[in-house]
């Protein structure tokens, strides 16, 4: 289980996280919603150690994430970045097999390529994509490659940072369905951050809303639709009027 307790993080005078507390049980798909600039990506980066929180604790299976052995800790994670973050100097298969070509999970090159092609197939891409460079792919294909890279080493925990941003509704639906299938199939713990309500409905076991630097609300998708919380209602219905200021 991932547990966050009163995590705070400021950038200069801008207090982004002001005491975030949240539990994500193993095997659960948690989706964090919230407006732009509310610190959703910072929260994920704090868990991964890419950003150091100012205060509070983050534990994974009871162990403080700042005190565990980094390589072993990171080997448990996969992440799909918002823009894909594919390495543009490498071919698609080398991106997917990055972790399998070096470090503690290193395999022979041929085997790593085989696994990469299998993962590409898993996300609906044909083997002929393997030898292309990321710049030769469409946005949707890049997301799929990012997804294949995130699952290549079969991690226990997968983070998805705005997985459908910049995609058309059909491609967004395809990515949402893939994420749901993969998370269920692998039994992985997943945290997704998104503004896209169709993603929330397709991916989430549980939803948390981040607002003003704290978790304002948590519950299932059904509870989200039924809640009377004005912040959640304004957000999920995309209303300009309500307690969340439209201009931030």
């Amino acid at each position: 289980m991932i547990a966050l307790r009163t995590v705070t993080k400021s950038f200069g005078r801008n207090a982004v996280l002001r005491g975030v507390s949240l539990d994500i049980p193993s095997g659960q798909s948690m989706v964090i919603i919230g407006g732009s600039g509310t610190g959703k990506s910072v929260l994920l980066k704090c868990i991964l150690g890419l950003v150091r929180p100012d205060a509070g604790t983050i534990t994974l299976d009871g162990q403080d994430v700042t005190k565990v052995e980094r390589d072993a800790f990171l080997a448990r994670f996969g992440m799909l970045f918002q823009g894909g973050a594919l390495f543009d100097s490498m071919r698609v298969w080398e991106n997917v097999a990055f972790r399998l070509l070096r470090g503690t999970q290193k395999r022979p090159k041929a085997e790593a390529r085989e696994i990469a092609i299998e993962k590409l197939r898993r996300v609906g891409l044909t083997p002929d994509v393997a030898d292309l460079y990321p710049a030769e792919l469409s946005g949707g294909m890049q997301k799929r490659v990012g997804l294949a890279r995130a699952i290549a080493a079969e991690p226990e925990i997968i983070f998805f940072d705005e997985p459908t941003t910049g995609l058309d509704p059909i491609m967004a639906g395809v990515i949402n369905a893939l994420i749901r299938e993969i998370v269920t199939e692998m039994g992985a713990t997943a945290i997704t951050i998104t503004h896209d309500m169709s993603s929330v409905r397709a991916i989430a076991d549980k939803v948390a809303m981040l607002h003003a630097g704290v978790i304002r609300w948590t519950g299932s998708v059904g509870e989200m639709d039924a809640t009377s919380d004005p912040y959640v209602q304004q957000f999920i219905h995309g209303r300009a009027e309500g307690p969340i200021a439209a201009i931030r």
Partner: protein
Amino acid sequence: MRLLAPVAGLGRATLGLLAALGRIAFFTGQVLSHMLRPPFYLREFLHAVMQIGWFSLPVVGLTAVFTGGALALQIYSGGARFNAEMVVPNIVAIGIVRELGPVLGGLMVAARVASSIAAEIGTMKVTEQIDALVTLSTNPVKYLAVPRVAAATLTVPVLVAVGDAIGIAGGWLVGVNRLGFNSSTYLQSTVNFLEGWDIVSGLIKGAAFGFIVALMGCYHGMTSGRGAQGVGQATKSAVVSASVMILATNYLLTGLFFTS
């Protein structure tokens, strides 16, 4: 309060400079410590050798040949004031191997390589590729900076050696074709005059300049701000800081090597 404003501004600038020096020193320490510990990324190192060493040869060669030629003309016309035209081969040789070869070679590599390293790594930073490296259990300093710094430290002395030879050849071409020197006398004079330490000191400078160029490229790339403007600023800072550090280091090394 307004009277103290310039003092406060000076204090802020000094603190900012000291903080930047501290960050560069810390980054240098990280690079050196990772250089000595496995894993070593041989493929990335060889790629950097090609990018930094091989592809810089044309620009370093062209700079050297024109510098050698211009130097020969200057020394000939300056030497004529006290009937010392015959020192052209000697001064061209010593000027090229001790100073102009390493310094101009270093500056040209700074312009070409520090900028491209900073732009490449800066773009990787703003597109989250560096964060992706971390999540893939790969240390960005070890994977991105160490191969480039090692490659530049090893290849720039080779570039300097090639530049020295081409620069001397530039002086020889001008000396023989425009200034009326006998070809074999010019070359013999050059060979007889140069000492081993003249050449070695230039190569040591080249290694130091290569280290500086790649280090500044990597540092500014990794600390790049957001967006195209951030990457542009990182690129500019990399070239300026590498160039200034090359000139300052050149002065220090020249003092160390030749004034004892």
